């Protein structure tokens, strides 16, 4: 069910900019399709790791837009450092991706 996920990490002077795109419907439970309420289906947890160490943990709700895009910034990263990002949704579905700092 989980669609593709994209991430990019780039050095920007004194910090590294990490961007991630997650493919997810992020259903609010309020929308109707053909007269039926579409049940809530949204990412709840996300984790960003730099070289295996957690740097950002997020708890989010259905109020985050469909196919969520996030930017984060970390200090002290070098080119080639490994960035891993994963998410978990309210149905137990999960996905992850990794990239290297460029």
């Amino acid at each position, binding site marked *: *069910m989980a669609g593709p996920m994209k991430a990019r990490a780039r050095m920007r002077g004194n*910090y590294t900019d990490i961007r991630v795109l997650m493919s997810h419907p*992020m259903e*609010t439970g*309020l*929308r*109707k399709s053909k007269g039926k309420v579409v*049940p809530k289906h949204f990412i*709840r*947890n996300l*984790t*960003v790791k*730099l070289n295996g*160490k*957690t*740097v*950002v*943990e*997020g*708890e*989010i*709700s*259905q*109020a*985050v*837009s*469909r196919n*969520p*895009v*996030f*930017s*984060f*910034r*970390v*200090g*002290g*990263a070098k080119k080639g450092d490994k960035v891993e990002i*994963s998410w*978990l949704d*309210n*149905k*137990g*579905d*999960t996905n*992850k991706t990794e990239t290297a700092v460029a």
Partner: protein
Amino acid sequence: MDEARRVVLRGAGATGMLAAALAAGLLKPERAIAASWNKAAFDSKSTVDALQKMGAANPQNTGDIVIEAPEIAENGAVVPIEISSKVPGTTSIAVLVEKNPQPLAGQFQFMAGALPFVKVNVKMGGSSLVRVVAQAGGKYYTATKEIKVTLGGCGG
């Protein structure tokens, strides 16, 4: 705690059937997910209530939280909000859209060199104050920005 989380994620990958069962409403999702998620705060229907459930009642106003967002958003389904906190020692940032049915949209914890910065797209049901709450040294600080929405992001 982190290790337990990995196990949950790995387990979740191997349980496509479980996901199908969940989709069919056979199991309650709340029970299947062990990763921390502040359900009480996310389910709160008012900002005051959500802040209380986050343990952040009566945060102090500050000019040190920068919220960059459009004054007028044409499409409430995708409202980009960029937040950075200049409050020294900020460890977490929460975003609340005050007039949404459940105001709390997300909460982010920063550690091990992460800067107190996040950019996120949120849905807004209509024009509303967007409130950001930052935690620093056990205290809570807040700032708001009014965003006008010309087309709602919830429902049809």
